[in-house]
């Protein structure tokens, strides 16, 4: 009996110490800013990771979780499993009143309409089939805006996720016209430039990936938010001046070390083109950017308009970005 009692005391002590250890591990993990990214670490998302790495050097440690879809990253932030997220949360903010605010415009929807050369202008596309990424996504919104501008109507719309899959479809002759990203537009023109060409797109692209967070977390962690937003803005400005900075920083931090040589060699080329085409806008966002996004996403069907009545402060929290601008003297 005595033995049994002693054992139970020992067991109890072990349980308490285990709980304490777990608790402290939890507290340590909590100290890191948890970032939800709806993508893998790739050339396109590398700059965001570098900005986070720089923030870490300034004392704001982070932990990134990669999700297969942007929607999952948004859900992770809503439900408190992540503090910041990367994605476009406009629809969630409006429709389910999720307490999220955009902090920084990471990338813009720089997409290019590509078509078979038999379609010389947009007018020839009237009534013709076209492929988009998925329903109510950026590519379809760009298509809708162009159709309105040109006074045409597309024929049958098909949906093929991934620009890389759509250009394969084009080269195989299954798709005659679509809208693809910068890298795949270049690849298509390189491989089959004799058969396809680029049609005029939209001039002011909307936000694609933004940095956003939950309002309650942002208000409790203003300092951390300021450091992160400042590092994003600093890197975006540096990229505009010197796109090779991304590759230099990658080498210094040994990021993406498991990627093949071809991918790593293409990084500077990608950032040179991407900054030139405006994928990474150095301003990081503003009230005007937000309003342009409202116009675009209302057209896409993600936001319910009229766009003119949507308030910037319901979707964006611009104070950290303004403070970052002041800090960087821009």
């Amino acid at each position, binding site marked *: 009996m005595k033995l049994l009692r002693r054992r139970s005391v020992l067991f109890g002590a072990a349980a308490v110490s285990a709980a304490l250890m777990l608790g402290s591990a939890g507290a340590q993990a909590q100290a890191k800013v948890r970032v939800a990214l709806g993508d893998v670490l790739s050339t396109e998302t590398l700059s965001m990771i570098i900005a986070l790495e720089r923030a870490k050097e300034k004392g704001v440690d982070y932990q990134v979780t990669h999700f297969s879809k942007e929607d999952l990253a948004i859900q992770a932030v*809503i*439900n408190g499993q992540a503090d910041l997220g990367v994605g476009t949360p406009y*629809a*969630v903010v409006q429709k*389910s*009143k999720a307490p999220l605010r955009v902090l920084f415009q990471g990338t813009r929807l720089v997409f290019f309409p590509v078509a078979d050369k038999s379609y010389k202008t947009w007018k020839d596309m009237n009534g013709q089939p076209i492929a988009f990424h*998925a329903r*109510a996504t950026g590519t379809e919104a760009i298509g809708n805006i162009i159709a309105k501008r040109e006074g045409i109507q597309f024929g049958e719309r098909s*949906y*093929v996720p991934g620009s890389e899959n759509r250009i394969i479809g084009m080269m195989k002759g299954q798709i005659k016209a679509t809208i693809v990203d910068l890298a795949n537009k270049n690849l298509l023109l390189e491989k089959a430039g004799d058969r396809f060409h680029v049609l005029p797109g939209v001039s002011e692209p909307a936000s694609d990936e933004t940095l956003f967070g939950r309002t309650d977390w942002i208000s409790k962690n203003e300092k951390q938010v300021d450091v992160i937003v400042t590092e994003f803005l600093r890197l975006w400005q540096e990229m505009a001046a010197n796109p090779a900075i991304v590759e230099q920083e990658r080498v210094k931090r040994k990021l993406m070390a498991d990627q093949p040589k071809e991918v790593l060699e293409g990084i500077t080329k990608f950032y040179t083109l991407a900054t030139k085409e405006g994928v990474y806008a150095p301003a990081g966002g503003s009230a005007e950017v937000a309003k342009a996004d409202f116009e675009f996403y209302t057209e896409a069907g993600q936001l319910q308009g009229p766009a003119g009545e949507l308030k910037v402060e319901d979707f964006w929290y611009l104070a950290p970005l303004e403070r970052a601008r002041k800090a960087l003297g821009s």
Partner: protein
Amino acid sequence: MQISELAPALPALREAPARRWRDLLIHPLVLRLLSFAAVLALWEYAGRIPLSPAFPTFLETLGGLGAIMADGTLFKAFLITLHPLVIGLTASILCGIALGVLMGLHEPSEWLFAPIFVIAQAAPLAALIPILTFAYGIGLTAKVMTVCIMAMPVIVLNTLGAVRNTPKSLLEMGSSFLATRSQSIRLIILPAASPMIFAGLRLGCAAAFIGVILAELLITPTGIGDVISYNQSVADYPKMYAAILSIIVFSVLFIELLERIEVTLFRPEARP
């Protein structure tokens, strides 16, 4: 009736309404309705807390269901979803029963085919879908194959078990009456195996529903899978949950119908 007779009968008479209430409360239909009501009430409560801003209440979901039914989205989506489901299920039933019977009657065939189906049944389908898309692309074939991979193993293995477990006494009776091989298959083995084969069909249909929705969510969004993923991407969660609810209800009703048929045809003892 004399007073002396009435006295013992009184408590029983007094208890009669109470018993009637108790009988009504434990009636299967009432209990089932109560079970549904409890789950739906919990759902409504969880939505009102709210559990998450992305979790709609039951009433909001009903509103969403009304909206997608009114504009015809739901019916169009069901037609598209049923396409691979019907093709895959028909192929699974025909091939599955034929293969199962063959394996049950012919042992070498069992050694040849059974491992494939045992593995297919145990394999996590979501992990196989990328392989299927490599082999069959992103069209109808890949979705039909997903349905088959989900439904066929259950049907085949149940049929095999049913044929193999024909009561020995019945087979011995057949031999005593000098039945030929084809007669004992037609008149003894298949009728004896039918109830279990049918139970396998029911399980196979349930698996096929899972397969088709997985395919629509993971390969290319079409039909109900498209309604779910589209409404998720535009954050219209009541409609998204309504689409999920509708496919669950449809699947449950379909399986219930199959069970009714099974009871009517093969299980007279289970009839009410």
